[in-house]
Each structure stands twice: as structure tokens, then as C-alpha cells.
């Protein structure tokens, strides 16, 4: 926990850019500052809110986790592999329906909005990704994937270590969007767990004007004095972030470049992420969850059903996110993860049980997109690992490359023991 204020300065960010510090000089308390800003006009507020994140010049890293084990063989279908059709008589994506990526792979038709991003080089796909010691348990595998330090006794999460490796993180440095609780990847002492359902809902009831905001925040800070622990730390983080949230709420938000987000929690979280990126509040790592991927039954077909419906939202939301970011996409890299893939062979319920190897999307302005990366192990029974797609790429190779090339960090400090192989997924950040 490094974001707690001891200087009494607004936001509790000891390292705010001088211009911003000057702007708030004389404000005696967080609430007053926030509320004063909030009373300014929207345009002015936004101008004032945009400040350089002095401690960090890398990309904002957005981690999108598909919870439940997304079926990578439906998302990026190996339509050039005959074993795929043998193993999945009722749920495979037909060659005629898939959106061709290369000679072997096709995107699920519900992800049509992503095809232009692939073609224009903003989206790269990695296939047959996994972690070293799979258990096919949702909980063990998520835990291990987010700890990302196999074989070590480290207890922290990898995003906590990532933000911790940057200088002077502010309250927004590590943000969970779309939920009031942060995931395992942020577990640890290095980063404040800012977790919010949405920017607009991050308000303090009863603090209806500047004076009341000061009254509340002063009292709440006093009541949460003392050693940092699991009650005082989140309380102080909430207080640290309130005034920035208030300023953003006053300014309002309209997506740029004609971006149209679909309905749903994933789109809402991505829209708020774009909003925070453009406002320059100091986002460094963002975690977003997308759930409901544990499709043991009735996965559906390439024309409709459960998978189709969920992927439709994913495709539209990610495309809108990139459109909305516009030029700011050059400062953002989004990576998708999931605790495991599914079995190659469908089960008797029209679904797929827990498996192993999976896909990962890497999306952003600094991506060498337009290719499917990785080594394809094949799906014939003798090519699988006990009936599952093998993992030929350690997922940490993908993350390490993002950390090195886009976040300007030393990967080994965040991912101890990670493989040194790199796929060439990303351009070195200038």
C-alpha cells in the first residue's frame, strides 16, 4: 500500500504532476478540491483533470479475464484441422461460417466486429497458450494464473507486482472496473485495490456539496487512522479516489469517433476504462472480468446459442473500445486470459468439459496484429494432452512481452522465472 496520503494533499498522490499540484494548492482537503473542480464547467474540468502520469510512461495494460474457462476452439476455430470436426460433430464452426484468419484458423462468426482490427494489425491472436501445471480446476488454475509465479512462494498477484514496479502509483494505478472487489491478480501490499462497478456509481451518499464532502472525508479519514489493514486500506483508497471520480462525473462522458458500445457489463467496463485512459487519471493496470463461460452443456452453434450470444457482446464491446480510444489506443494494450480451455471432444450434453490449451487476444495500437502466433500442436488424439489441446506457449511469455515492450518494465521483476522466449507480438514502445 503506497497510495495512502501522509502529506494531506488532495488525492493522496504524493507525486502528482506539478501543474496539477499547483492547481489544487490552497485546497485544504480532498473533498473541497474535488467539489471545487466539480463545480467548474465540464470542459474546464476535463482540461484540468488531464495530467501527465509522471511516474509512468508505459501503456495502460488492460487484462480481460474470461472466467469459467472459455472454449478457445470455438473462439479461434482450427477449421483446417480435420480432427476438429471428428471431435465435435455438433458444435464445431463450419469452414463456410468461420471468418478466415489464415490457412488453419477462423474466427467465430459472432466476432465479426474484430475482423477489421485483425486485418488492420491492431489485433494479434496467440493459440495453444496455457500455464505450466494445469489442474483443470477453475479455482486452482485461476489462482495460479493470477499469482503467475509457479514454483515460488510468492503470494502476491502479478498485477500488484506490475504496478508495484512502477514509480509513485496513485489511487487509480491499479483499477478493477465493473466490480466492487478486486481479483487475485491485484492481491498484495504494493497496490491500492481500487475496484468500482462504474465511474458514475463511485459516490459517497450524504456528501451532497463541497462542504459536506469535506465534512465526511475528514471524519472518515480520522476514523480509519492507524496501521494499514484490510479495513483501513480500502477505506483510504476509496477516499483517495472520490474527488477524481466526482470530477469525471460532472464532466460526463460521450464515446468518441462514433463508437457504439453494446449493452452489458463488459461494454460498460470497457467504456469506463476508455474514459479513464483519456482523462489521464494515472491508470496503469486495469482488470475487467467477463463471466459465464463454463459451458458444460448446450454451447450452441455458429449461428446462435450460448457461445454465439456471449461472443457477440465481446466482439462489439472490444471493437467499440478501440474506436472510442482512437489515437489513445497507442497507449493501451489489452490482453485476454482464461484459466483453461476445454476438452477437444464435445460431451454428451452438447458442451465441453474442462481442458487445457487456449487462445489469447492481444489488442492495441502497439500490436503486430494480423497473425495467429504460436505453435499448433494438432488435435488428433495422439497430439493432445489427455484429450486436451496442448499448451505450446507459456502464457507468461505473452505477458512478459507486453511488460517489456509496452510497459517499459523488466519482466522478471513481475514474473519471476518466466520463459525468455518471445513471439514478436508487439512493437517496442518509442
Amino acid at each position, binding site marked *: 500500500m503506497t497510495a495512502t496520503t501522509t502529506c494531506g494533499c488532495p488525492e493522496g498522490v504524493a507525486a502528482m504532476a506539478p501543474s496539477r499540484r499547483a492547481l489544487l494548492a490552497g485546497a485544504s482537503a480532498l473533498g473541497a478540491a474535488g467539489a471545487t473542480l466539480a463545480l467548474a464547467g465540464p470542459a474546464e474540468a476535463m482540461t484540468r483533470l488531464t495530467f501527465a502520469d509522471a511516474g509512468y510512461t508505459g501503456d495502460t495494460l488492460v487484462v480481460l479475464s474470461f472466467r469459467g474457462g472459455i472454449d478457445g476452439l470455438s473462439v479461434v476455430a482450427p477449421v483446417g484441422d480435420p480432427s476438429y470436426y471428428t471431435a465435435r460433430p455438433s458444435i464445431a464452426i463450419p469452414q463456410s461460417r468461420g471468418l478466415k484468419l489464415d490457412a488453419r484458423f477462423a474466427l467465430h462468426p459472432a466476432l465479426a466486429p474484430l475482423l477489421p482490427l485483425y486485418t488492420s494489425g491492431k489485433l494479434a491472436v496467440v493459440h495453444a497458450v496455457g500455464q505450466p501445471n494445469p489442474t483443470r480446476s477453475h479455482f486452482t488454475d485461476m489462482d495460479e494464473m493470477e499469482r503467475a509465479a509457479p514454483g515460488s512462494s510468492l503470494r502476491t498477484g502479478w498485477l500488484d507486482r506490475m504496478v508495484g514496479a512502477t514509480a509513485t502509483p496513485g489511487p487509480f494505478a491499479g483499477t478493477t472496473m465493473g466490480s466492487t472487489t478486486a481479483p487475485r491478480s491485484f492481491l*498484495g501490499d504494493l497496490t491500492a485495490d481500487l475496484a468500482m462497478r462504474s465511474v458514475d456509481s463511485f459516490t459517497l451518499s450524504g456528501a451532497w456539496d463541497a462542504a459536506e464532502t469535506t465534512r465526511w472525508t475528514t471524519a472518515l479519514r480520522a476514523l480509519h487512522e492507524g496501521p494499514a489493514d484490510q479495513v483501513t486500506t480500502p477505506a483510504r483508497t476509496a477516499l483517495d479516489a472520490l474527488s477524481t471520480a466526482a470530477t469525471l462525473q460532472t464532466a460526463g462522458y460521450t464515446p468518441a469517433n462514433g463508437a457504439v458500445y453494446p449493452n452489458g457489463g463488459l461494454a460498460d467496463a470497457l467504456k469506463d476504462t476508455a474514459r479513464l485512459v483519456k482523462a489521464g487519471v494515472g491508470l496503469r493496470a486495469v482488470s475487467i472480468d467477463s463471466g459465464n463461460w463454463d459451458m458444460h452443456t448446450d454451447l450452441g452453434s455458429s449461428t446462435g446459442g450460448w457461445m454465439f450470444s456471449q461472443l457477440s457482446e465481446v466482439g462489439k464491446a472490444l471493437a467499440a473500445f478501440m474506436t472510442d480510444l482512437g489515437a489513445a489506443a497507442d497507449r493501451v494494450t489489452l490482453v485476454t486470459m482464461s484459466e483453461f480451455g476445454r476438452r477437444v471432444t464435445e460431451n454428451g450434453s452438447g458442451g465441453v468439459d474442462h481442458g487445457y490449451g487456449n487462445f489469447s487476444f492481444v489488442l492495441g495500437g502497439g500490436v503486430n496484429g494480423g497473425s495467429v502466433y504460436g505453435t499448433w500442436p494438432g488435435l488428433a488424439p495422439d497430439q493432445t494432452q489427455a484429450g486436451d489441446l496442448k499448451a505450446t506457449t507459456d502464457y507468461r511469455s505473452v505477458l512478459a512481452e507486453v511488460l517489456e515492450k509496452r510497459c517499459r518494465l523488466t519482466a522478471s521483476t513481475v514474473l519471476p522465472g518466466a520463459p525468455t522466449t518471445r513471439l514478436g507480438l508487439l512493437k517496442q514502445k518509442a
Partner: protein
Amino acid sequence: MTSALPRRSAALQAVLGAATAVADPSAPAKKAAARATARTTAPAPVPPRSTAPAGIVVPKAPAARSVDAAYAPRAALGGTTPPVPVARPPRYKAVRPVAPRAVSGGTTSTAAALLLARRATWGATPEVVDAITSMGASAWVEAQLAPKTIPDPVVDDLVKTQFPRLAWQTWEVHDRYWPDQTGDLGYDTVEAYLARAIWSKRQLLEVMVDFWSNHLVVTAPWGETWDCVHRFHEDVVRKNALGRYADMLVAAAMHPAMLAQLDNESSSKRAPNENFGRELLELHTVGVTGGYVESDIRTSALVLTGMSTESESGEYFYRHIRHHTGQVGLLGWSSANTSARGEAVGVSYLQHLARHPSTARRLATKLAVRFVSDTPPSTLVDTLAQVYLANDTAIAPVLRALFASTEFAESAGRKTKRPLERIVSVARALGVRPGADTRDWLGDLSWYSRVAGQAPLAWPAPNGYPDVAAAWAGAGATLAGWNFAMHQGWSATDTTEKRVTYPALRGLLPTTLPSTHGAAVDALATRLLSAPLSAAKRDAVCAFVGKTAATPLKSTDSLVGWRLPYVVALVLDTPEFATR
């Protein structure tokens, strides 16, 4: 699913909003939609009392918020039956334990009574603390372990009048509603769960119901179990919460709700679905380190083939035609399994797992985490596991041993309330009572708990809500807890609130007004937290109303006037209140 069962309740559809539009909603669906829409709006705060000094700004009502679709138990679908999603990984290891906050200002017995009240109930109240103090801790625990001996007229009456459908069997619900499925019993189940948590005199039973609901997980409301989720809660969880785990496990495995939740209803010898076979081992019994190997998962699934449901009634039905026959064995259990009528083989397997030492250790650990500490002492876990095995999986002796243990007695300050515990304990601390439309008010509470991240029974994954503070350390959950306390303060002074009864907040203070602001804050803290705050914190509360502790208190002062709801909320925002 083999039948064309209806998929989702209209109300759920409504919560999900336009993205999942219902074709031509029926009248009940529209009603449900209206209800769900109403739920997405936080109750507006009440303006300060007219005694507010001139120039005081009336608070603005918060803007309406829609419930994030991500929080809805499932995504919309045209004609598929998705099983349960996985939302959030558990976080087992607390990196930094909560510093113990000793209970101050009482004798040892008061401190011990307060600790037991905080841990064994949904929130300490003066009534509970007094009962423990006068009866003695062990006698109070003994009485709680025999819930049928404790009269509970308020809750009995409430459940009977507000939730009559909970008494219906699955086949009756099915018969009444299929196929329009407007009768999703999930909402009844969730709201009754909240009602019992707040008002039941059988508090330890309700705490254990919550424990088991997060161990043998059936998500609600969830569409898929629209007709039977309430029966799972009654016939599996509530019936066995203080009984034998072997009985509960068998009852769960032979219940349509669990069979739907983990897909065993569609599993067969030709195409076994591994979901239940796996989670039974990993979550319900021996645990991920319990000694099974990957090939055991398939065996586990094969043993359970046949346990299914009957589509016309929705009730449990054994489909022997699907049962895998032939020698099976794992984890020290085996069976020749020669008959297709293999239900008894499945039951024997389940009972073996319930009695397995790894299961004993897993349950002992979870109980110790629930009641003692996020990182419980291994000495206690060992003891509890032994008691569990020695009593053939009976739970009451384990709880008796737990509450009598030194480890428990020394654990004050080691547990933090989760968001739902915070919400329920605010209602208990304020002494809210049922009223003219309790059910509607409970719906609001359900909405608040969803915002805070812990709606009852809403955890979508089969492992239940995490039970360590580190998993709840997001700033948003804290903020939601503060906001709930404020809204309750407003509700308590809202003369139009007739759905339930809020005692006057002035009643939280002695009839004779304390002479100073400091004394009044002490009295308020003693009533709400069972102990006064430190001098520094008391001063901070006084400063909140622009006074010092020594400032004399008059009946016209804002502390006991229009600001009282705010001060009450502030006291409920303290780390002291957040501690279990």
C-alpha cells in the same frame, strides 16, 4: 437438458434489460419487469428534518443506476441452457492480517459475549450480548444448536405470510407455472434468506445456513432452477445445517437443483458430464489436494450417472438406463457396480467421501476460517477434524468444540465483515422490524447487497463466496457499505417509509440526554458497537457536527436533531463496526 424446459424467469430477463428483450411479455412478466426496474433505483434520500438551520442544502437523490448485467446470474440466451458461470477467483491467502482490535470497555465476560455474538450471529445486538452474558456462552451455544427449541414467531409468521410459495414442492411449482416460468422461486428464496438473517432468533442456524449455501452452492435466482431452488434451500441446507454432513451431501446430490447446477442431470454412461463428478471431489468433499488424480474425475462422474431429473415434474429421478455399470473405485472406495439400478452405489460413494479424512480436514478448515480467523491455527483445525470424524460427520459437536476452544477465545478482531454481513448487521443494529410490505423492503436490501458485491446466493461459481478479508478489499465494497448505512439513516427518519418499522434514532441514546457531545457519541457507540470509540475517534465524530467532546449538549443541537442520521451512519462506518 433433454426437455424443452423454459429457460429463464421473466424477472431475471427484466433485470438484464433491453439487451435480452422478452418477446411479448405476459402480464406477470411486465409486473416482474416493473419490479426489477424499481429495484435498479436506489431509494431516494430523505431531506433533512425541518429543524435544519437555514441555508442547509437538501441532499440530491442519487441518480438511478442500472444493475450491471454482469451481476445478473446469467446471460441471455435463445434456447440454450448454460450452466453456471465462474466470476471471481477465490483469494485464500491474506497477505496482511487484520490487526486485532481488542474489545475495550468491558469485563472479560462481556468481551467474550461480544465476540460470540459477533461471530455466531449475523450481527451483535444488545439483546444477544445480554442473553449470552446472562445464560453463559456454552448454554447459549447449546440452545442455538437446538433451534427447534427456540420460538421464532416473527420469522415464522413472516415466511408464512410473505413467502407462501416456499412451502410448495417442486412438482407443484412446475405444475402451476410451466411453461411460462413467471414463478421463479429464486427471489422468494433470496428475500426469505435475508429476512431470516435479520430477524431470526435462531441465529447460529442462519449463520450455518449461509455457510452451507456457500459450500453446496446453488445460485439464485438463476432461471435454470426456477422450480426447485427453494426446495434445495429447505430440504437440503436448512434441514441438515446442524445435522450430519453425510446426510446433507447425499440430499444435495439427489436434488434437482444441484443436478441442474452441475449438469449431472444430462450425464450418461455414453457421454459422462464431468462437472459434478469433479466439483464433488474438489469443492464438496476431499478438496483439490485430497489425493485424487485426473482419471478419478471420470470415475467419479461415471459412478454418479443415473442421478437425474424427471422433466414433467422437475423432481429427482434415477435414470438407470444412463447408469454406467462395472467395477469402479477411487480414494479407498470401490464397488462391483453390476446393476444399472445403481443409486445405492452412488449413495455409498457419497457417504464414503463425507467420511473421508480429507473431507474432515477441509470442512474443519472452512469452519475455522468462518468463525475464527482467515488463517486459522492448525491445532484448531486438527481438533475439529477429529471431532467431525469421531461423531460420524455430525456438525453440532464440531461447533460445540469450536466455540469452546482457546483459539476461538483468543481470536477477537481477526475477522472482518463481508459486504452482506455489513448490510444485515446494520439492519440488526438499528432494530428494524417487519412492517406493511416487508418483502418489498427486502428487495431493496437485496439490491444494495448486489451493489456491494455480495447478494445472497448470487455467487455464480460452485465454490461459494470467499470468506477471507483479502477477497473483499476493493474500495468499492467499502464505499457501498458506507452508502448503505447512510441510506438506512435516511430511511429511519422518513415518515413515508411504511414497509418496515424503523425505531426512532433518538432511541439509540439514553432517555435523559447526555450532558456533552462526547458523552452522547460514547453512548451511541456503546449502543451500536457495544463499546465506546477511542478518544480520538470520538472527537472526530464530534467534529463532524462542528463541536468538541466537551461542548455541552442541548436538545436543539444538530447531533440529536437533523444530523442524527448522519452521525449514526458515521458510527456504523467505523472499522470497529466492520469487525466481526
